[in-house]
């Protein structure tokens, strides 16, 4: 459990075009083997871009990349051809938000899973179908034999997401990336999928990076949380630390905005304003314009990263100070 599975160092992602967007700015992150990390952030915070960068899915012509990403010691920024294909889908796989779009409508789900297994493991079709059936059992799809012959549109949303997970895990990846996999689902189905993913993680022992905008979901799924804002990680720690003792004013604001135990009719402590557009690279704290604790120093330079504990960090000059009501 102590080996590092994934190491991201000083990652920069900039989209070029009519308007430049500095999507990721100096992001560093470490994931150990078998760990589940939630990347928590709002739209435009760069959490999905981070996942796509990890799979090298960004269009290369329109993207400037900087920094290093090492997966189990291999530099993935230099992978190409065969090595890249075996990395994608073999070592690392992804579960998307909308399984309706991510599954191919013209193949049965059995065929789709078997196809992936054959490609990566080089086994016969019959063996691959066995693996596919086993996977459907593992994601608790009832009457899996019959479901193998179903097309994606014949399944309900929750079932499709289970198939998507089976597909992602069929090749026994060592890292699973999940991009808001439960956002499109109903509440009673969402909790089923979350618990299933937790069980499967224990069973397969892979590392998981789970992108979400929902703190409640992050709490249910992950042991660690990294909070993103404006393409940076502004706070990281165990789920317990981040939820029980949030240090960054943004994290504190997000927790307050969750309305979990806000009394009815009281005014909400809303974070004013909206996130920056990131047309230029932030050279000061990007949260400063919305921050209730802002000082002059926050507007002059990027805040230094404080490390109040092992694997705990906060990028804030006033980390841990309470927000005045």
């Amino acid at each position: 459990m102590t080996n590092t599975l994934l190491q991201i160092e000083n990652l920069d992602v900039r989209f070029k075009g009519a308007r430049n967007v500095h999507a990721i700015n100096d992001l560093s992150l470490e994931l150990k083997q078998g760990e589940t990390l939630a990347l928590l952030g709002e739209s435009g915070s760069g959490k999905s871009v981070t996942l796509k960068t990890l799979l090298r899915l960004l269009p290369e012509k329109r993207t400037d990349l900087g920094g290093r990403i090492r997966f189990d010691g291999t530099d993935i920024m230099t992978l190409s051809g065969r090595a890249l294909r075996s990395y994608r889908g073999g070592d690392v796989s992804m579960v998307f938000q909308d399984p309706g779009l991510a599954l191919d409508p013209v193949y049965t789900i059995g065929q789709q899973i078997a196809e992936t297994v054959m490609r990566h493991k080089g086994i016969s079709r019959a063996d691959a179908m066995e693996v596919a059936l086993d996977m459907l059992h593992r994601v608790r799809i009832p009457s899996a034999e019959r479901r193998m012959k179903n097309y994606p549109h014949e399944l309900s949303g929750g079932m499709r997401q289970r198939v998507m997970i089976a597909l992602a895990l069929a090749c026994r990846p060592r890292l699973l990336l999940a991009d808001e996999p439960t956002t499109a689902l109903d509440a009673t189905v969402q909790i089923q999928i979350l618990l299933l993913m937790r069980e499967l993680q224990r069973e397969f022992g892979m590392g998981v990076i789970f992108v979400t905008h929902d703190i409640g979901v992050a709490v249910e799924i992950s042991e660690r949380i990294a909070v993103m804002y404006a393409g940076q990680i502004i706070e990281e720690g165990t789920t317990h630390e981040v939820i029980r003792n949030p240090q960054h004013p943004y994290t504190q604001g997000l927790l307050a905005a969750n309305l979990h135990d806000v009394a009815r009719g009281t005014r909400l402590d809303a974070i004013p304003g909206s996130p920056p557009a990131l047309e230029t690279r932030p050279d000061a704290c990007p949260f400063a314009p919305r921050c209730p604790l802002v000082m002059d120093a926050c507007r002059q330079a990027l805040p230094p990263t404080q490390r109040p504990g092992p694997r705990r960090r906060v990028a804030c000059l006033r980390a841990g100070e309470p927000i005045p009501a």
Partner: protein
Amino acid sequence: MSATDKPLLSVRDLKKHFPIKGGILGRTQGMVQAVDGVSFDVAPGETLGIVGESGCGKSTTAKLLIGLTDRDEGDIVLNDRTLGRDMTLRALRRDIQMVFQDSYASLNPRMTILDSVAFGARVQGLDDPLGRARRLMDRVGLAADRFAHRYPHELSGGQRQRVNIARALAMSPKVVVLDEAVSALDKSVEAQVLNLLADLRAEFGLTYIFISHDLNVVRYISDRILVMYLGEVVEIAPVDQIWADQAHPYTRSLFSAMPSMDPDNRTEKPPLAGDPPNPIDPPSGCRFHTRCPLAGPVCKTRHPVLGPRAQGSTHWVACHLHDAHSGHPEAGKVVPA
């Protein structure tokens, strides 16, 4: 709502079934029972929250209320006047307005914000529509001087939803239907818009029907909560009562499906298995019996009726467990939580 208050809006036995066309000749092959016999009252100044999963008919109910979808059956009574009898659709639409979920799709991309807000007032022939629109824009926190001539794509999601709220208010409606109006917003922006909605409610004496899948949001804004399942109302009660004690097994499952927000005490068992059934051919009897952990033989055959839990109670539920004479083996006993 206490019994002495006269309701502002009454909905009686509202029904909408959508035909499913199929085959070469386009014949009707089935009916989606989107809304099937929904009734409720809303008192003036009250906020009624409607919750339920996809396919439960909450959005269809919203569209029926404002006449965007024609109802098959049922009455909509506003201020003692019944739609289609002594009230026209046009008159109804002056008093009931709606805010949609998708803030971008609900604004005409080629119209300036000011024109969009003023459109309704113009149509209804109210005086000084532009002045009205400007005042409302200022009121919802979008300075008219700066934003009046912008286009929707130049605004953020939160700003656009403010425009939609201003547009709904431009006709001085009595009731505003908010259909997942804050669901697409980021959490930090959602809180700002909720504060705004609460302020406007107090200032203009508005009555809200607040539809959402997020129970925390519904609890924050609502006075009463109505729970729908497959086109029917299964439970309706004041927020505090339902929060403390959910009578219907479905409501209870919905509540326990909420993430715990407690890293030391995470959810260990999903409250329900499987997805909500298809509303095309809803189960017989109680529609929830296929997923209900407490279902008895009577639930498969007899349809439970929505009624008060106890004599005179404001907590209404449609479940055989709460009807001592239903024939359910557990009926009338204290239901285990």
